């Protein structure tokens, strides 16, 4: 029997189990807009934890982190640092956002901006920015899922066909279920992902070197410089590390899909307790780094580092284990992809299309349009996935450089009464403009710093300056934020 005939059916079997779990969880409730997007705001600590973990531990961690450990080395450590620090920031920001959401029945990030700054124009702009930068994040998931199919087929299925299969799987999964379904599939995904991480992180170094310590000892002898910054890169030294960690930790809480999962929480306190325990989930990430570092010695000279983990598995273990790990990887792509697509579809329909083009549209029609957008947005991500060769981590860094530009509007909006709509708008445009110009003229990193970070600094400066130069909007702050801060003080 051909090895691919064992691996592929196992992968598709796991995908099927995930999809059935999703459909079943979705079936039991009538799906209106409130249920489909924020699940009636009834999630407790465990479900929110699963939902947020489902968002963070994606193909990016599974294939991207190990891939960068393989190809870049030391700079990859930024991933461990930013995921940990993002939760520290979330402690101060997310409960306040939740409180706003409950008070004013907000569904999306764009709703938050409309409520806080009383401007449909800004809210629509925020929705467009959200959808635009979700696309590279989604592209990352599809590329990862495509790599899994390609490797498990023992290269019998081509890259572009694999990505097309990934598109069908993901779009089908989202259309058949809402966010509640996603949280339950997260349970399956996280259990499998943990199992896979332990098998690989311990098993691979043990199989070839007799342990993680011996693996590092061999690596230190031959490639010690790879393990510290800038590793095997030219410009990713310490200043790049600091600026990238800050950019991505700040960007971490302004993802539109993070807002969606904040609003599913039962209370602000759920989110605060979440911030205490979430960093611990990061303890599994180093296991994936170990695989990437091992692969340097096992399979040197791969062109595409993102394939290092799976090719190592294929070479080391039997096809059925490749199937199991591929299946776990497939779910780690599907679950976050579903969350991203749900968010982007809702943002487009509810916050961009309806207010600007069809104000009389009913909630049900909005939900239908959101589902149509699922196909369009996933299709766009598929197109980019087939025609781009950026690394998985590179894709996410690009997405962060864009999305983080929403952070000043969110954070200052929650804590500074003097911030104004024109201020936030001017800052956002400055930040996005600077970031994109630097990235597309290939000036990233610039002067040793992450280009997105420089853009964010300019963004903050412009937001503050322009806010001070325009008339204050004190009513909003007094009415909304202050009452929230007061409500927040009582547990």
């Amino acid at each position, binding site marked *: 029997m051909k090895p691919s005939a064992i691996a592929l059916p196992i992968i598709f079997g796991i995908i099927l189990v995930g999809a059935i779990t999703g459909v079943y969880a979705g079936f039991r409730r009538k799906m209106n807009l409130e249920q489909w997007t924020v699940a009636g705001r009834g999630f407790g600590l465990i479900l929110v934890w699963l939902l947020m973990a489902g968002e963070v531990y994606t193909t990016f961690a599974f294939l991207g982190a190990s891939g960068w450990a393989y190809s870049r080395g030391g700079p990859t450590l930024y991933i461990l640092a930013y995921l*940990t620090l993002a939760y*520290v920031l979330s402690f101060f920001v997310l409960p306040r956002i939740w409180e706003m959401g409950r008070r004013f029945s907000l569904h999306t990030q764009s709703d938050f901006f409309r409520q806080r700054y009383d401007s449909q124009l800004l809210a629509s702009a925020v929705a467009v920015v959200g959808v635009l930068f979700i696309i590279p994040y989604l592209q990352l998931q599809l590329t990862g899922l495509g790599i899994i199919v390609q490797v498990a087929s023992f290269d019998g299925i081509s890259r572009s066909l694999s990505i097309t299969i990934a598109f069908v799987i993901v779009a089908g999964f989202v259309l058949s279920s809402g966010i509640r379904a996603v949280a339950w599939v997260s349970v399956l995904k996280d259990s499998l992902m943990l199992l896979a991480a332990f098998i690989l992180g311990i098993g691979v170094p043990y199989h070839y070197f007799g342990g993680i*310590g011996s693996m590092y000892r061999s690596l230190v002898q031959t490639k010690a410089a790879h393990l510290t910054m800038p590793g095997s890169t030219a410009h990713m030294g310490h200043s790049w*590390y600091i600026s990238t*960690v800050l950019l991505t930790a700040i960007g971490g809480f302004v993802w539109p899909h993070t807002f969606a999962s904040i609003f599913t929480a039962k209370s602000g306190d759920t989110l605060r307790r979440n911030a205490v325990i979430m960093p611990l989930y990061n303890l599994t990430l180093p296991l994936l780094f170990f695989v990437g570092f091992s692969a340097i010695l096992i399979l040197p000279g791969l062109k595409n580092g993102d394939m290092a983990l799976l090719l190592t598995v294929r070479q080391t273990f039997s096809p059925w284990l490749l199937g199991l790990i591929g299946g776990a990887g497939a779910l780690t792509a599907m679950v976050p992809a579903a969350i991203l697509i749900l968010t982007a579809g809702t943002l487009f329909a509810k916050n961009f299309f309806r207010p600007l083009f069809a104000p009389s549209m009913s909630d049900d029609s909005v939900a239908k349009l959101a589902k149509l957008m699922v196909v369009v947005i996933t299709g766009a991500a598929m197109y980019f996935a087939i025609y781009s060769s950026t690394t998985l981590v590179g894709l996410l860094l690009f997405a962060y450089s864009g999305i983080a530009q929403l952070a000043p509007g969110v954070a200052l909006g929650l804590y500074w009464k003097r911030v104004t709509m024109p201020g936030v708008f001017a800052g956002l445009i400055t930040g996005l403009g600077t970031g994109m110009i630097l990235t597309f003229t290939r000036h990233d990193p610039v002067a040793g710093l992450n280009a997105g970070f420089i853009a964010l600094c300019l963004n903050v400066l412009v937001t503050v300056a322009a806010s001070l130069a325009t008339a204050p909007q004190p009513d909003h702050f007094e009415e909304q934020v202050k009452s929230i801060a007061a409500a927040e003080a009582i547990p």
Partner: protein
Amino acid sequence: MTKIRVLPFLLASIPFLAICFSVPLWDRVYPLVLGLPFNMFWLIAWIPLTSLCMWGLYRLRMSDATGETSAKKDGSR
């Protein structure tokens, strides 16, 4: 009161100092600790330590909030 307001931000800044700004101090291979390069070991060690800081923050907030509510009750009496 100002003391209570400063403390949360101090607690929150500890992880930032330890795993972000201080990178030149710990980004090295040696000494290997538990078989890991020092930078790897340092970052892994700071995952539970960050959780610990967050737990401290949470406790502080809780005692802060209950203190405030009882203060409010006293005021209304």
